[in-house]
């Protein structure tokens, strides 16, 4: 009696248990990372004497409470915002010191002098829908990105990347430090050519 060996445990249900756990983790997993539009807020402290900006260097976009768009005092559709913003940024109407040698715009003297001076001002109402606001933001960022892409490809024809791809490669942790260093200088040149000057007015209280 004492010599009886222990009975073997049946392992047939092991797979069932493992499957159960597997399905639980499959259901609860969220692998995807979030993405969105990155913005920087202005600091709170008031500027004592704000620099004087010429009206022609400001591109105003107003979204009202009915989600209608007013671009440079004219009622426009959102599909036009990107091309209008690009036209404004790329105008390069400045003379002499303000001249812009890489701009491909119309050089209209009544529009912006050069991309470094051009400011886009976005104003919204408290009743504006967030969806529309994001759509407008998206189009304005797209205008900057398209111009930056153009210049990046022109300056770095061998890289086989455009600005947006290079930027995401730069922020990718797998990129080697030496490549990052190279990308950083290339990116900052283009960023200086078309600085993202997107100002948001505080919403009107109504």
């Amino acid at each position, binding site marked *: 009696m004492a010599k009886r060996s222990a009975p073997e445990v049946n392992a047939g249900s092991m797979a069932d248990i493992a499957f159960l756990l*597997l399905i639980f983790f499959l259901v609860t997993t969220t692998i995807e990372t979030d*993405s969105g539009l*990155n913005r920087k807020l202005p*600091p709170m402290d008031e500027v004592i004497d704000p620099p004087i900006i010429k009206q022609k260097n400001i591109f105003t976009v107003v979204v009202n409470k009915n989600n209608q768009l007013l671009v440079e005092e004219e009622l426009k559709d959102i599909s036009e915002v990107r091309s209008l913003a690009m036209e404004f940024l790329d105008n390069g109407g400045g003379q002499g010191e303000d001249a812009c040698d890489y701009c491909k715009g119309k050089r209209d003297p009544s529009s912006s002098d050069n991309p470094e001076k051009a400011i886009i001002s976005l104003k919204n109402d408290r*009743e504006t829908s*967030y969806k529309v606001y994001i759509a407008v933001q998206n189009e304005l960022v797209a205008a900057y990105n398209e111009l930056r892409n153009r210049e990046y490809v022109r300056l770095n024809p061998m890289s086989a990347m455009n600005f947006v791809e290079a930027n995401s490669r730069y922020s990718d942790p797998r990129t080697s430090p030496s490549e990052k260093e190279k990308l950083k200088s290339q990116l900052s040149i283009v960023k200086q050519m078309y600085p993202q000057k997107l100002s948001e007015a505080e*919403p009107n209280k109504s």
Partner: protein
Amino acid sequence: MSKFKKKKGGELPAISTASLPDIVFMLLFFFMVATVMRDSTLMVNNSLPAADQVQKLDKKDRVMYIYAGKPSSRYEDKYGSTAKIQLNDKFAVVEEVGAFVLAERASKRQELQNVLTTALKVDGDTKMGLVSDIKQELRKVNALKLNYTTRIGEYTQNID
């Protein structure tokens, strides 16, 4: 010639399933390692707007999340149907955003405290008034890096 006698009978040998648990365990461990559990239950409707000029969000430990939107249907009779802010697991008013950001910042490691990003996960149907209020609160506590979290898609999906 009997050495090369054909095996009799056409029945197939049973496939051994002994390694099946191993395979399943391998998958299981993969998903266990890759899993990020949702850290707060959503109490608001959260259908994000679409955008295509997006950038990936930083690493998870550098991000704090602020949710906003209409309370979801199970909370509707208790909290009403106007858009609200959700911080961690409870509804909050705008004034609490600043304290929340400071608390979150204090809970992070020293070297991360200056590189924190605030991710705004706001429902598409929210009015901008609420979002502007949040932004003003963030400015007050000097949390200036902001990310409007979106879905990836054409902007035209936002206009109806």
